[in-house]
């Protein structure tokens, strides 16, 4: 117990250790590099492996291999690295690999501004690879949340056998804040479901499409298979359209059916509010100041802060939007999440974006002015 003054990236690394992570591979890239350096300090004393790979493709490749050999694995990069992870993220999806991927977002596209923040990768994370399967993405606003959500990301990865994104931002990852990590409430640790010994193991077995298959490690009790090719429940290549559809439905159903479990958000409603501010990540902090000031000035404003971005917490969004006239959605991008809000907004509700991506934070004043909260 006790207060520490640490940056978001250290909190992410410490959360990984808390969640039982024992394998990390990464390639240096600002603003994610200090996750690699923290993992280098933290994992070896716990008997884990931290390795700098020759490039981003190898980073995630190492992690997929280690995860399928029984490790709890994490990798971290920024937007340029996610571009290189893309194909392997698709592999991790259909291989049903538990894996935590941290994207410390920086101003893009391309090399962009290496040391400046943005939330430009929101829909990039959602549609990160070919095939269009659903993905889980969490977005922390503070150093404390970076800790909590990274820990939860491991739980989700193990519970649903899938890669999980932590969408941080330079402004969270490289800002130091006061935290007491031990005082942060965490759910119990989730360990992967393993098959009973002696059974005829099938690597992608399920009865109901949303059921998460048990996972036997390479080197474990059962001989197992893993493949990048379209495969059946046994992990064998198949060209049978019925089997192919069954597997695709399964990848989607296991995440869609878990939407309630995955939906993390903070809803702060005000009776009779005509305006709702929907925000996430570091911008939610300016939004909360804007909402507080608006309320002080007599305006009735509700606030919904999303920690889970994908799958979209649709129930929470619909409930919060019911009864308001306007929604204000500030984002450090050109309005990437606004399209999710707009498709769920009841008829007649207007959705106004407050958008900037000049590498600086959106201020409470801007949200108040452009969002007409004053």
């Amino acid at each position, binding site marked *: 117990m006790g207060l520490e*003054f640490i940056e978001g990236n250290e909190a992410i690394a410490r959360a990984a250790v808390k969640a039982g992570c024992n*394998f990390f591979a990464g390639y240096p890239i600002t603003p994610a590099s200090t996750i690699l350096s923290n993992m280098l300090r933290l994992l070896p004393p716990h008997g884990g*492996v931290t390795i700098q790979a020759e490039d981003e493709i190898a980073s995630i490749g190492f992690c997929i291999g280690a995860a399928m050999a029984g490790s709890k*694995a994490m990798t971290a990069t920024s937007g340029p690295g996610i571009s290189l992870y893309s194909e392997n993220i698709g592999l991790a999806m259909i291989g049903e690999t538990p894996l935590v991927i941290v994207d410390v977002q920086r101003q893009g596209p391309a090399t962009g501004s290496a040391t400046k923040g943005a939330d430009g990768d929101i829909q990039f994370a959602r549609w990160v690879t070919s095939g269009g399967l659903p993905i889980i993405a969490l977005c922390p606003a503070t150093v404390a949340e970076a800790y909590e959500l990274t820990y939860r990301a491991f739980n989700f990865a193990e519970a649903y056998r899938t890669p999980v994104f932590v969408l941080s931002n330079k402004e969270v990852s490289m800002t130091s804040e006061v935290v007491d990590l031990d005082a942060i409430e965490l759910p119990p640790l989730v360990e992967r479901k393993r098959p009973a010994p002696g059974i005829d193991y099938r690597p992608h077995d399920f009865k109901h499409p949303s059921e998460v298959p048990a996972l036997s490690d390479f*080197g474990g009790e059962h001989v197992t298979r893993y493949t990048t090719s379209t495969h059946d429940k046994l992990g064998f290549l198949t060209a049978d359209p019925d089997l192919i559809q069954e597997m695709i439905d399964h990848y989607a159903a296991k995440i869609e059916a878990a939407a309630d479990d995955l939906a993390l958000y903070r809803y702060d409603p005000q009776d009779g509010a005509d305006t709702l501010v929907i925000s996430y990540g570091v911008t939610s902090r300016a939004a909360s100041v804007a909402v507080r000031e608006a309320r002080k000035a007599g305006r009735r404003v509700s606030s919904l802060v999303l920690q889970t971005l994908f799958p979209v917490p649709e129930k929470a969004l619909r409930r919060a939007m019911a009864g308001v006239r306007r929604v204000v959605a500030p984002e450090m991008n050109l309005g990437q999440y606004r399209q999710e809000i707009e498709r769920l907004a009841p008829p007649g509700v207007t959705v106004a974006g407050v958008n900037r991506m000049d590498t600086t934070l959106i*201020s409470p004043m801007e949200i108040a002015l452009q969002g007409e909260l004053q």
Partner: protein
Amino acid sequence: MTAAALQTYMSEEAGPLPFCPGCGHDRLLKELNRALTKLQLDPRKVVIVTDIGCIGLSDRYFVTNGFHGLHGRSLTYATGIKLARPELTVIVMMGDGGCGIGGAHLLSAARRNLDLTLLVANNFNYGMTGGQYSVTTPFGGRTATTPGGNVEGPMDLCATVAAAGASWVYRGMTHDADLADRIVQGIRHPGFAMLDIWELCTAYYTPRNEMNKRELIKLAEVTGMRTGAIAESSRAEFGAAYRESCAGAKKPKKTVIEKAFASALDRQIGIVVAGSAGQKVKSSATVLARAGILAGLDATQKDDYPITVMTGHSLSEINLSPQRIEYTAIDQPDCFAVISEDGLKKTRKWIARLPETCTLYADEGLPLPETKAKIKRIALAQTAKQLGKLSVSLAAVSAIVADRGFIPIDAIEEAVSRFQSRDIVEANLKAVRKGVELAKS
């Protein structure tokens, strides 16, 4: 595993091998099977990792574990598996195509020398996609994408990985009588072992080029890519070396900060320190933030500096507040210290829009732009001369604290003595006292 020896490591359920008549892969898989049968490893402790291409069909024909990965990336999965479970035997099967697209991984695996065995099924073209040229297509070789003959020079895989440090390198051909024994040798070698196995692609390369067993042998002679053992060394295996390098690693200590002082601060304030690389701007800002925390305040800090870290500006922004800090940018600083020309250059636009509520602490010699901020000149250059440039930022921070009094100066001294490394405490306490002096002058 049962005590009875396994007669084969090929799966009966998988059926006959799927390769074209005369394809070298067929022979290679059978030789690998012979090798595995000689080794008698527990199939659960063996992972065959395959790349993309016809060779990628191979793993399912064995009773061992199988991992079929992305094109060119098979060595990366194998590396992850072997690092996570050193007791496993990991065999990678890749075509010449994979050696091209995965060239960086091939070089790195050789250099790293993790205990993997790589079998390259090298048939000089991409057999799965229609016979396009690869990194090993011989000069003049006709393929789907080199209709006039290949004008790129081929890559000598063995020489390349040997130069990169692979500790066991061998070149052979699928018709070699001792191939199974060579594969056994490669698997037994404790380090990165590569076997470059030349073979025929009867679907594409053989029909387009004069190529048969005799021509393969001739090609090796003509190109100087000799067969047999190419390199062998006993350099340290990566996994073992890594684990040894980590032995004795200690869990890092936490720096816990407990409230020890009081502060009368009643709102969030923002402090900016703008100086140069090498002036300890960041660490002085951290002293201020920690002092604030010692005084019961919430604090945030972010830093900005160019990628060439030893030159140019160094900028830190610190918020202190009796309440939880939400918004961390400082749009309206309360205190702004400019320590150097670099710091001034970086913040000139910002200084010009500082509000009148801000106090700007600047060295006497710095030519400031027009600003509404209240300017307080302090002798920072002289301080640097007296105490050294490592002391100037902390002196500036201490001058701000002494001048404004939002936390006691004792908290700064405590943050220095308690949290900074012993060898700099004395000098830094001197800098704090100098700062207090500067505030008075």
